[in-house]
């Protein structure tokens, strides 16, 4: 362990055995005893090493199931690693979640004593801190009320107040800031800042990139049991976001085509196929922001249809983003009559100005009955799923394709003002 390190982790690995099936009846158990146990192994951590410096605010981020909770549990001593070594300098708060061990049937006072004991405090230490804990939690008037009658906000306050008063040099916190109101969260963060000044170490596991960005000195990105990055919070967040995106992309490629559960439209025409193509004509699911693509829709007509129109709508999880329409594009195109049995390919060429994220595309084929009214022939709600990625950075919801230029003027005389 180097001087200045609070925690040093060397080559930690952990594998879990997950039984394939639980023997719930005696018969199964008896049969299972002869057939041998079948289980899958899950490598939660694959030889992880890093050190946390004393007085550091250290973030751990990763997707669900990445191994970050296992890592934290190993640091806390709850799990024993299969391999590797952990050295800890100073007293560690041995809890992960707030209020572990609190009993709803006990009063606030009793819970402080019980919870304190679980955190490894002596009775004397708890007595010494008791009034401080209660006043931090703002529960002076409710000391002898049963915990179960507290609001969830009050419960969290008490738990947090106890935790930060646990005389620990190293604090392990798992998603603790996700609870409580903004006021209390700020109070907690102030308290963390105080901790930092006192040279204490805080390890924070969170999904909130805000806290990582604002409070952490360094952060580690854990993915599939490995460390993907260790260093500045900004860079860690970038990498975490990228991992998240790649993951959803993989998921989409597995679900090749989405099938609508029910047919929407009168069926006089059928959308046979739809694709997003790059300019080389290759089908794509992953689109780069700022590049050109085309949507291909193939429609088969079951009856003669007068002036059919075609459209597509980009949507994200909550909003309609942009609608394409064969009549209202830069070059409106019209088909006067589509004959029965005819198959028509429709192309929409577009420049992708969507920002990185996940989108679905709705595709529809209709006829215009009146100026406003459409008769829908066929509509596919989530006909396509795409992921948009980007090589450059964005702020905000648009990619405006901005060019920057400078024009320098008036540098003849330098004017220095007073002050």
């Amino acid at each position, binding site marked *: 362990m180097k001087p200045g390190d609070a925690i040093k982790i060397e080559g930690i690995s952990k594998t879990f055995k997950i039984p394939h099936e639980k023997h719930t009846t005696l018969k199964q*158990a008896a049969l299972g005893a002869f057939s041998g146990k079948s289980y899958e192994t899950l490598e939660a951590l694959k030889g992880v090493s890093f050190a946390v410096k004393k007085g550091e605010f250290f973030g751990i981020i990763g997707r669900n199931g990445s191994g970050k909770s296992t890592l934290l549990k190993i640091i806390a001593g709850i799990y024993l690693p299969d391999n590797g070594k952990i050295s800890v300098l100073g007293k560690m708060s041995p809890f992960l979640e707030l209020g572990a061990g609190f009993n709803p049937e006990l009063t606030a006072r009793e819970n402080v004593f019980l919870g304190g*004991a679980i955190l*490894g405090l002596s009775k004397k230490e708890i007595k010494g801190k008791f009034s401080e804990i209660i006043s931090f939690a703002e529960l002076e008037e409710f000391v002898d009320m049963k915990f179960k009658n507290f609001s969830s906000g009050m419960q969290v306050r008490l738990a947090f107040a106890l935790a930060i008063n646990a005389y620990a040099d190293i604090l392990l916190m798992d998603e603790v800031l996700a609870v409580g109101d903004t006021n209390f969260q700020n109070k907690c963060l102030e308290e963390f800042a105080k901790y930092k000044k006192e040279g204490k170490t805080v390890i924070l596991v969170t999904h909130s990139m805000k806290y990582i960005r604002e409070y952490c000195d360094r952060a580690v990105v854990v993915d599939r049991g490995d460390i993907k990055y260790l260093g500045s919070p900004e860079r860690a967040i970038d990498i975490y976001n990228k991992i998240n995106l790649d993951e959803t992309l993989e998921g989409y490629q597995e679900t090749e085509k989405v099938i609508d559960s029910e047919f929407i439209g009168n069926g006089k025409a059928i959308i046979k196929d739809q694709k997003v193509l790059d300019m080389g004509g290759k089908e794509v699911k992953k689109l780069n922001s700022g590049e050109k693509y085309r949507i291909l829709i193939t429609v088969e007509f079951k009856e003669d249809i007068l002036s059919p129109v075609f459209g597509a709508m980009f949507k994200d999880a909550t909003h309609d983003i942009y609608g394409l329409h064969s009549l209202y594009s830069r070059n409106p195109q019209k088909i006067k009559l589509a004959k029965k049995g005819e198959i028509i390919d429709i192309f929409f060429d577009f420049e992708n100005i969507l920002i990185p994220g996940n989108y679905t595309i709705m595709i529809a084929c209709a006829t215009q009955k009146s100026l406003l009214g459409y008769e829908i022939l066929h509509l596919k709600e989530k006909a396509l799923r795409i992921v948009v990625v980007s090589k450059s950075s964005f702020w905000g919801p648009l990619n405006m394709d901005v060019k920057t230029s400078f024009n320098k003027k008036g540098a003849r005389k330098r004017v220095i003002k007073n002050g």
Partner: protein
Amino acid sequence: MEKAKYWNLIKELAITDFKLKYNESVFGYLWSLVKPLLYFVVLYLVFTRIFKLGDSIENYPLYLLLGVVLWGFFAEATSMCMQSIVSRGDLIRKVYFPRIVLPVAASLTSFIALVINLIIVFALLIYFGVGLSPGLIFFPLLLLEFYIFALGVSFFLASLIVRFRDIGHIWDVFSQVLFYGTPVIYPLTLVPGKLLNIIMLNPVAQIIQDFRRIVISSDIPSSSHVLGVYAFIPYLLVVVIFVFGYFVFQKMAAKFAEEV
């Protein structure tokens, strides 16, 4: 220093459990007294009025009461301790502390109840006019032996049930068998010779008989009367079970958080 802190945790857990057990019941702690007494009354009526087991024994009510109270501790302590790990799975998955704290605390909760019950027994002893014998100096030692035995058995049960939940049912049945295999209700004089030897190998039988001997009457046979030179076996069993149970528990404790 560290030990002292965990001792505080043991105390807090034991007292909390004791409090919670009678929480929100009108008679509260009184139930810890009333329950064994009621049970005693039932057994007393059945075995003096119907089966007339107690006729051959002087002070049978006290004999029976002491037996019931002591057995009650063993049965309760082992079943509470057995559940002490699995019932606190949530805590174990979230916080690190030495896991052994849990069964020790659970056994202490039962032990508190035992001490209260024994006070009642002594009050009745004085009421019935049974003199206090000099053998009572061994009383604390016997209590210690009993506690250690119950704890040793509990270590096994508490750790094994984490992996094999069937242990819970098995122990329920087994402790019923053990109840009848221990001279709680009946006097030893009614037990035929060969069976007597087997019964007295059981540490609970040895402990209950020794308690009765020093508390009620020195005429009551102890294990040494029955087993002769083999009288050391129940004591040895206590030590072996405690030590072995402790090591099994500590060995398995490292994985409780994953398995519970």
